[in-house]
């Protein structure tokens, strides 16, 4: 495997080495396995010791976000059983990270639970803040991309500056993507506008959700993006469905895939 060379000659010396538990959210597992594979391979290329506990299911977010918090207990308990033994828990999903970090309280808050909650990272933050990756020498992406920051990453994890606050502009995903050869960026008119996925909102408020999704993908397309890239596959799943139905010719890719060296 190509990762072996990087593991040997590069990453171990440069990046802190931790035992990492990989969480792959249900919709990535079922519909976007390539995003999961890219996440794993990328972390391996960076010399990390990664394990994927096979008995994982869900972080509890769908139940929590619906207000059915007590129904999140089984998923949360299983999550802790799976991940308590790791130094860090990494997942290619902003909204799941947000749930674990900020709302994961359907079960008693033991030391184990606190350990899990305090050491769970979304992939971009992990690469940017913990590993502080400065190069992706294997990555080249000769396309124009529009970056979609999910609301979870943007306003809960704060991986980028938020237009409402007038902060000094910063963007962790953009910092990482800028290190990829050949890539160029298109900026939509409403970069921070929610795409309308919203978990069960996408079904209970189907009309508004789909309309927001179509508006979102058109905004990116009109800005000249060939791809919409995001750290959240749930937003991608929704936007892709909207784009395909409305006939908006734009493609979708998870940020892990570009950083891992996907060419298209």
């Amino acid at each position, binding site marked *: 495997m190509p990762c072996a060379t990087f593991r040997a000659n590069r990453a171990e010396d440069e990046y802190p080495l931790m035992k990492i538990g990989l969480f792959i959210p249900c919709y990535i597992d079922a519909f976007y396995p390539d995003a999961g594979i890219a996440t794993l391979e990328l972390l391996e290329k960076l010399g990390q010791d990664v394990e994927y506990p096979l008995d994982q299911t869900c972080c509890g977010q769908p139940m929590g*976000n619906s*207000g059915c918090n007590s129904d999140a207990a089984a998923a949360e*308990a299983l999550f802790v059983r799976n991940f308590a033994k790791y130094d860090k828990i990494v997942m290619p999903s902003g909204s799941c990270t947000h749930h674990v970090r900020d*709302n994961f309280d359907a079960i008693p808050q033991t030391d184990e639970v606190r350990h899990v909650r305090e050491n769970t990272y979304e992939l971009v933050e992990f690469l940017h803040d913990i590993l502080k990756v400065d190069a992706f020498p294997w990555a080249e992406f000769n396309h124009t991309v529009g970056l979609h920051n999910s609301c979870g990453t943007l306003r809960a994890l704060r991986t980028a500056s938020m237009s409402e606050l007038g902060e000094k502009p910063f963007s962790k995903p953009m910092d990482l993507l800028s290190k990829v050869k050949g890539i160029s960026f298109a900026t939509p008119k409403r970069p*921070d506008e*929610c795409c309308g996925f919203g978990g069960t*909102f996408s079904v209970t408020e189907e009309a508004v959700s789909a309309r927001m999704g179509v508006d979102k993908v058109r905004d990116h397309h009109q800005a000249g993006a060939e791809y919409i890239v995001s750290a959240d596959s749930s937003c991608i799943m929704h936007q892709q469905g909207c784009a395909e*139905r409305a006939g908006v010719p734009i493609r979708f890719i998870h940020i892990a895939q570009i950083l891992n060296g996907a060419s298209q």
Partner: protein
Amino acid sequence: MSDKPVNHARAAEHFIEDAPHLQFHDERLWDMRQKRDAQMHILPEWQELREEASRIKEHTLSRLPEYLEQFETNAKKNGIHVHWARDGAEHNRIVGEILKAHNARNLIKSKSMVTEECDMRPYLAKQGVTVTETDLGERIQQLDDQLPSHIVVPAVHKLTADVAKIFAKDYHTDPDIRDPHLLAEAQRQAARPVILHADAGMTGGNFVVAETGTFVVCTNEGNADLSATVPNLHIATIGIERLVPRMADMGVFIRLLSRSALGSPITQYTTHFRGPQKGGEMHVVLVDNGRSARLGMEDFWTSLKCIRCGACMNTCPVYRRSGGLSYGAVYSGPIGAIIDPTFNERKYSTLPYASTLNGSCTNVCPVKINIHEQLYKWRRVLVQHHEMPFVKREIMHMAGKLMGQPKMYRAAIKATEVSLSTMPRFVLYNWLNPWGKHRENPHPVKQTFNDWYRKNRETAKPAAAAPETKK
């Protein structure tokens, strides 16, 4: 009042079907959000102002009884009559009695959300009082017999053609007028005689200052000033949460209010009412109507900080695409979704779900109300109080169970993949599948990540969990 839960989703679907209205509504409100951003960028101290405004409001709310009494004492010294209304009915009765005592039959009023809360107009109509709204948008809504759809721009969901139609019916103007100036002139011509011959005027109040016993009304049309000063009798209806302790605090709020609302530095008219005009009478009716109870709600009391700027509505992508009327409540948009359930938990139980929890509302709020976190918390409360539809509750219950059982969960994923790749389109896309109404389903994959990992990594990692039997 009917307790049937508001069907926001269906009303929104209806709103979206009308493309010209939808597009105008979305773009007009987004434009207000952008103008607000531009004002924010001019003021480097914007975030400090928000923090200060939030602090002042929280302080005031934590000592509300003291400040209310201070206001009452000082207002009386200024010659203002102060009334206390526990709820909407009491408010209406008080206003009705004041009008009766003056034999007032014609009341002109400027915009006031509290009077909408109290449902005052029908009450006064029964007493033979003619109420005329003087705010242009509010008047349009009154003529069309609709609630305001936005707390600052009440008729923002209407196009010029809609207004022309309404005016044609009531003012006998040309229904084909498309020039907003002509329509505004029609309203002016219709309103002026009513204003000049009114027996009483009513306003709301944006801020009440405890130390001076005065109150402040902010408008852009000057109609509040006409309403308050042309007749000799001025009644102001104000919610008890509108207090600030000192006149000096006004500097913070006035700088935030119109910038957040419309993206203008200040409202055209910012009037401080200090007492009755010569020979006239001034009454302030302080309305509770559930506010004291809300103040006691640990997770939701900070919603009382709201200064009614509407910024949360302008930025809300759901509100912009569903229209204020879809909320079926006096207060719409994100702020409505967190305060409406305090008026009627069952009826408004759907509103905290009319949100993606994206959090933009919280970021634009000039008094830093954590709106999207309160939406999240309301969902928990509503489920605890059994206000979630049975089917959805059961689905969540089953999903929660499934997520705790990895083997059953794996089987369910497999079944989903199989059905996505084998079912014909007409089976996958029907009324049972709201996802697929305006969206394609996700594509089935050859193998899940879990399958891939078992094949490609599992053997190399003896430390991993014990393998399950493969399908």
